[in-house]
């Protein structure tokens, strides 16, 4: 593995602009953080936070790929970002409504208590 090249590619230099890979690495870390949030929390709100993190990581990927692809898809990157934002907004609203129902029914938003779907 060419370590120098890796440094260059990841943008740890001022002689070249930050490349695509730096964004992808950041997005991967962000996605993993969101995943950890989903996995480690009991609180449903925490899971929603994790999902938002993962979605944002995806949006970042879209934007980075669009930017570095030479604009091949026209406005596909920003469009995907907008659609994802719309989806995230709707999803957040629905999720919070579900959580409220959950709270009414279980007096808690602990997802480990709400396991009625167990097969």
């Amino acid at each position, binding site marked *: 593995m060419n370590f120098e090249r890796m440094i260059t590619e990841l943008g740890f230099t001022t002689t070249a602009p930050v490349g695509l890979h730096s964004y992808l690495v950041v997005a991967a870390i962000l996605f993993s953080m969101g995943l950890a949030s989903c996995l480690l929390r009991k609180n449903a709100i925490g899971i929603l936070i994790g999902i938002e993190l993962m979605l944002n990581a995806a949006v970042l990927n879209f934007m980075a790929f669009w930017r570095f692809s030479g604009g091949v898809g026209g406005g596909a990157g920003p469009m995907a970002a907008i659609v994802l934002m719309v989806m995230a907004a709707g999803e957040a609203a629905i999720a919070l409504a579900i959580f409220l129902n959950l709270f009414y029914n279980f007096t808690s938003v602990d997802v480990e208590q709400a396991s009625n779907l167990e*097969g």
Partner: protein
Amino acid sequence: MLPLLESMTVLQLAITIFASPLIAFAILSLSHHKVPRHGDWLAITALFVSFICSAEIFLRSFASDNPVMLNLSYSWLPLSAKHSLSGGILIDHLTAIMLVVVTLVSFLAHLFSVGYLHDDIRYGRYYCSLLLFTTSMLGLVLANNLLYLFISWELVGLSSYLLIGHWYEKKSASNAAIKAFITTRVGDVGMFLGLLVLYDQIGSLQYADVFAAVHFSADLATWQTVAGLGLFFGAMGKSAQFPLHVWLPDAMEAPTPVSALIHAATMVAAGVYLCARMLPIFDAQTLLVIAYIGAFTAVFAATIAIVQVDIKKVLAYSTVSQLGYMIMALGVGGYTSSIFHLTTHAFFKAGLFLSAGAVIYAAHHEQSILKFGGLYKKIPITATCYLLCTLALIGFPGFSGFWSKDAIIADVLHYNLVGSGHYFLGFAALVTVFLTAFYMCRQYFLTFFGQPKDEHLHSHAKDPNWTMTLPLIILSVLAVFFAGGGHWFPEYAPKKSGFEQVLQMTASEANTLELSHTPTAGKHQNSAAHSSEHGQIIDAHKLAMMLSTGLAFLGILVAYLFYYQNSKGQTRFSAQKVAERFPFLYRLLVNKYYLDELYHFLFVRSLHACAQECQEFDRKVIDGFVNLWAKLTMMATALVEACDRIVVDYYLVLGLARSVTRAGNRASALQTGKIKAYFVFSMCSVLALIIVLFFIV
């Protein structure tokens, strides 16, 4: 013509003629047990209406020069461009004559039946059948195409069957009905084949189309012969000609008015009508066949009639013989004489049958002439009518039968005189005259003269009431006077062979037809009209008149010698001795030439044997095969059932269900209901995808 009917058109009259018995039939068949007297008054009224309208048509038809009064067709089944079936009615001279004959005789038979069958248990049914017959017969003569004719033809056969089997409790009656139906069906097969050939070749069954096609196209020749023979075969069945005559004597099991109407005057004349109507399509060979069959039947049936003792059977064989006359006349081209004889025969033979019915009625349903005798004084009206009709049948000079029979014999003799050969025809015609006179007088002498053989029978005999005597009187008068001087009929009658009708039907082609018509017509001449051979015809007529009169008188004389008993009950010569002298001949005649036995042996027995063989074969081979197959099937079924039970049910169906349940139980463990587990699962999939993409692909 008739005062009240002047405003009606021919079509209206024709519809009335056909509809009034039809409506009466419909009403009575549904509700004859609800109306008083089982509705005989309705049937008689309907027939009377029909008769009046027929008379009107008859008068109009013979007052006009136009032979075809009405020929109306409508498209019934247009099948293709070349083939189509049409319905329609035709009224020409022939139809007009037939209409009058049918409705008059039918009306009188209905009237006669009131007395004859007054205490019958199936009185209403009897009238229904009679009405059905009359309707069908009228349809038969009104049709302007062979299809409708065929339909009516079968319907009259059906009603004949019903009426012969009217007293079906008697085994002989039901057998006779079946025999009549099947024998005429044999003829109908031929007729149907003829129809099929015509329809296939010409594409239409309209008389006009058929005649035109036969006349104009020469390439039809072979098929024309086939169709002509087929149609004639049908006519043979219906008109009881030689090989197929066996049903008619047995049909005397029917009530006597039925015998008078169906088996003497109308239905059996339908065959003659068909041949007359279809005369243009018969070629020379077919006509010769027709002539020979008619001539042979005439002699043949007359010889059998000599020895019969049943009063109705004698008349039945006489009918067969007279029908043979008509057929023979048609065969030699005597269209007019044939129809003439058909008409006169219808009246005097119906009169004879009804008189015989009156005799039987007076004798309490005894039919053997050997038990009668001396009835003349007890039943004078019946005896007089019987005598007049008998003389008409014999051809006694001046009576209607004399003129018509003379016309036929003249045609036949003329056919011989013009040098065609075939002297058998003339010989048969003359011999039959003698035989007819002999057996009719024998019957008359045995029945009405001499000593009574049965005192009880004799003492109770009396003339029936007016409903039965009135028809007798009317028919007797017609039998005497119908032919007038013997000349009016041929002058007004349809000319010969139907070509004039073709001319009328296809008016546009009249000129060409006229030209081509003349030479063909010359082949089958009959009477007046054609001046070139007029002299020969006059000769033939003179010869016929002399010979037939002489032979008739000879026949009467012989019968007198053999059968007239003087006051001591003795005859001049003994018929008994003659019979003993020629025992073989006598037995042959009494047993009707063993034809029934022959048919029984040829058809019934052989069919029976064949059927038995078939049954054996069926039982042993086919049933055995079927049973074997059934056993094999059962075994295969057991095998399949076991296979089904073990393999399919246990291992496949239930096994599948079991494994699905097991898999479901296992898989349901994955459904933990814990959201985190789902996250882990999906991330594991992502990681697996990464591993696949980077390390395997």
